[in-house]
C-alpha cells in the first residue's frame, strides 16, 4: 500500500490536486482513500459532492470515544473512493493540532480505513504545530509531495516543509517524493520549480497549469475528472496519478537557507 501526503502553503491547491489525483487513481482501478487533515474539512468535498458533515472529531465531540464506529466516520465518494475528514474545532478555540493526533489515532484504533492501494493525506497548509506533522512523524505517510507555485512565499513554505521531512527522515522511512507545481503563472515558473526541486535533492513530478475548468468543476462540486474527463486538465491529473503510482525516486531533502532561496527566485523571476 502506498501512503502519501500532500503538503504545501495554504491555498496553493493541495485539496484540489489531491481530489483530482485520487479520482484519477481510482479511475485507473486503484482502491483509494483520501484523508483530510484540516479543521476546514473541505479536502474531500469534490469527491463527496458536498462538504463532509461527519468528521472524525465531530464524533469525538458528540459521542463517547468508545461508542464511535468506523462507519460513522468513513464515507464513500466518487467512484468508490473512501473519504475521511479529521475535522477540528471552530476557528479560534481549542487545539486543531491535538485534534489531528486524536483523529489519526482513532482511525488506527478502529481500523476504520478499509484495505486500499493508496492512502492520501491532505494536510493543512502551514505545518503550524506538532499535530500537523503527525502524518509524517508517525509515518502515517511515507511519500511526501510538496505542492508549490513559483511564488516566493509558496517556495518558502515548501522549503520549510522540506526541513520537517528531513528531520523525520533521519529516523524513519518518510521521504520527499517530489514537488508538484501548481501554476500561478509567475515568470519562468516551471524552470524555477525545476531548479528549486533539484536544490532540494528532488524533482518536479508535474507542472499543473492554471485552468478555469478547475474552478468551473469546483463550482459543480466535482473534480475535473468527473466534470470534464476528456479535458486537457484531466489528462494532466491522470498523468500525475500515474507518476505518483510508479514513483520510486524518493529522497531525503536538502533544504536551503532563505537567502539561497531568495537568490533562486530572483534569478528566474525576471520579466520574460
Amino acid at each position, binding site marked *: 500500500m502506498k501512503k502519501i501526503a500532500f503538503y504545501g502553503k495554504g491555498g496553493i491547491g493541495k485539496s484540489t490536486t489531491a481530489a483530482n489525483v485520487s479520482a484519477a487513481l481510482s479511475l485507473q482501478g486503484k482502491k483509494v482513500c483520501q484523508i483530510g487533515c484540516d479543521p476546514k474539512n473541505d479536502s474531500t468535498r469534490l469527491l463527496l459532492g458536498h462538504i463532509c458533515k461527519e468528521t472524525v*472529531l465531530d464524533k469525538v465531540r458528540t459521542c463517547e470515544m468508545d461508542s464511535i464506529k468506523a462507519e460513522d466516520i468513513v464515507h464513500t465518494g466518487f467512484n468508490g473512493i473512501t473519504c475521511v475528514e479529521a475535522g477540528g474545532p*471552530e476557528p479560534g*478555540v*481549542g*487545539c486543531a493540532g491535538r485534534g489531528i493526533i*486524536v483523529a489519526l489515532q482513532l482511525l488506527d484504533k478502529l481500523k476504520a480505513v478499509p484495505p486500499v492501494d493508496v492512502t492520501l493525506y491532505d494536510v493543512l497548509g502551514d505545518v503550524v504545530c506538532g499535530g500537523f506533522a503527525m502524518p509524517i512523524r508517525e509515518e502515517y505517510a511515507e511519500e511526501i509531495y510538496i505542492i508549490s507555485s513559483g511564488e516566493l512565499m509558496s517556495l518558502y513554505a515548501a522549503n520549510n516543509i522540506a526541513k520537517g521531512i528531513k528531520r523525520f527522515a533521519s529516523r524513519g522511512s518518510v521521504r520527499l517524493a517530489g514537488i508538484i507545481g501548481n501554476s500561478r503563472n509567475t515568470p519562468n515558473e516551471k524552470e524555477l520549480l525545476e531548479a528549486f526541486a533539484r536544490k532540494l535533492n528532488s524533482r518536479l513530478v508535474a507542472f499543473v497549469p492554471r485552468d478555469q475548468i478547475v474552478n468551473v468543476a469546483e463550482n459543480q462540486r466535482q473534480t475535473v475528472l468527473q466534470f470534464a474527463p476528456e479535458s486537457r486538465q484531466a489528462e494532466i491529473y491522470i498523468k500525475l496519478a500515474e507518476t505518483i503510482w510508479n514513483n520510486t525516486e524518493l529522497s531525503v531533502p536538502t533544504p536551503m537557507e532563505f537567502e539561497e532561496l531568495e537568490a533562486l527566485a530572483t534569478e528566474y523571476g525576471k520579466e520574460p
Partner: protein
Amino acid sequence: MKKANNSEQKNSLATKWLFTKNRSCSCTMPGVWRAVSFCDGCAVIFHSPLGCAHVATLMDLGAQYRMIGDHQNENLDAVPMVSSNLQEKDSIFGGVEKLRGCITHVMQTWQPQCLIIATSCVAGVIGDDVEQEAEDAEKQYHIPVLCVPYGGFLGGEYSDGYFQTVRLIMERFIKPQPKVPGRVLLFGDQMGPCGQYAREVKRLLRYFDLDVKWQFPGYVPFAEWGELSTASLLIPLNYAGQTQGGLEKTAAEWTEWFDTPSIRDVYPVGWQNTCAWLRKIAEFVGDKAKGETVIQLEEKRLHDYVESILPVTKNKKAVLGIGRGPRWYNPAETLNTMRRMQMEIAAVILYDKLMAEEKETVIAAVEEWKKASQLTDIPIIADGNYNNCLEQADVLLTTDELPGNPVRQFFIPMVPLAGTDGELIVMRTIYRLLCRYGNKGGIAYA
C-alpha cells in the same frame, strides 16, 4: 569491593525534596489554592484536568499530617476546590464550556461570595480565554471573580501563583484606612495559624500587648478582607535564609499601599535573629526596655533548659550534613544551636546533590560562621569522603536522611521552627536522640 558497595549505600540520600533547581519545577495552581484555601466565602476552580486538583489535595494532606505530627488539632475547613475536568475532547475543541459549566455548578452548590480561577497547562496550551469567562461570570453572578491565568507550570512557579493571588486581593479589596492600635496581621503561611511559627510569634507578641487578629492570605474569611488594613502592624512569616523574596516584596508593597508598618528583613528563626526581631518589635511599640526584659526572660528559659541537658550533650561529637541549597537553608543557626549545647562540632559535610555554585555559597557561609565564632578548626568535607567522620560521630544533624547509615540523625526541619520555642524543640529532639540506648541509629524529626 564489597566494602565500597556498602559505603555507597550508606551515603545514598533519601531525597525527599527535589529543591535543587529553581526554575520551572513547580505549578502555579497549588499556589493559588494555598493563598485562599481557608478563606471562608471563597471557592476555587482549577480550569484543569482532574489530576491537577488531585495533586493539590495531596499537598494539603501532607500539610495536615505535618500538623498532626506536631500534635496540633487543626480544625480548619478548606473552601471548595473544583476542577473543570478538562478531557481530551476539551483540549481539541476548547474548554471554556466546561469551565462555564463548572462555574455554574460551583455557584449553585456553594453560593460562594468570591470565586478564584486558576488555569492549568492544558488550558494555557490550547489558549482558552479564561479571563473573559471570569469577566462574564462576574457580570452574571454579581460576585468578584479573580483569575490567575498562568497556565499551570507554563507561566510561573508555585510562588507566582500564590503571590499573584495575594496581589489581586490587595488590589481589589484592600484600601488604606485608620488603624486599630495593637492589632497585628501575620503575613505568609508557614503551616498556618496552628503551625509552630505562628503560635510562637503570637506568644512573643503578647509580651508587647500586640494581638494577632488575622493570618493573611490563606486564613481570613472573605467578608473580612476589607478590614485587613485596619491592622497597625504587618508581620511577614519568613526565614532569614530564604532569598526568594516574594513575601518580603509583597510585604513591602502592603506597607506602601496601605500605610501599615511592617517588620521586615529580620525573622525570629534562630535565637540571635529572634533577639534582633524582638528588639524591632520593642522599637515599634516604643518600649526598648521592654524588649530587653523579654529577651532576658526568654534567654533564661533557654539557659535553664541547656543546663538540664548538658550532662548528656556536652562534648558529644556532632556533625552537620548539608544538602539543601542556600536558598532554603542557612547553616549558621544550626551551628549556633550545636554550640549552645556545647557539643563538639566534628565536621561540616556537604552532600553531592548540591550544585557547584551552591556548594561555594554554603562553604562561604560556614567559613564566615567559623570566623565569627572563633572555631576555625572545624573541617568542611565537600568531597564525599565523610564515612570515617560519621563512624566516629555521636550524632548527625542533617538536611537529608542517610537511610542506610547507622549514625543517629536529626532531620533539620524544612519549615523553620521559630523563636525560643523553636530553639527549645530542636534542642530537646537532639537531646532525646542522644539519650537513646546503645548505639542504635535512626532518624529524629523536630
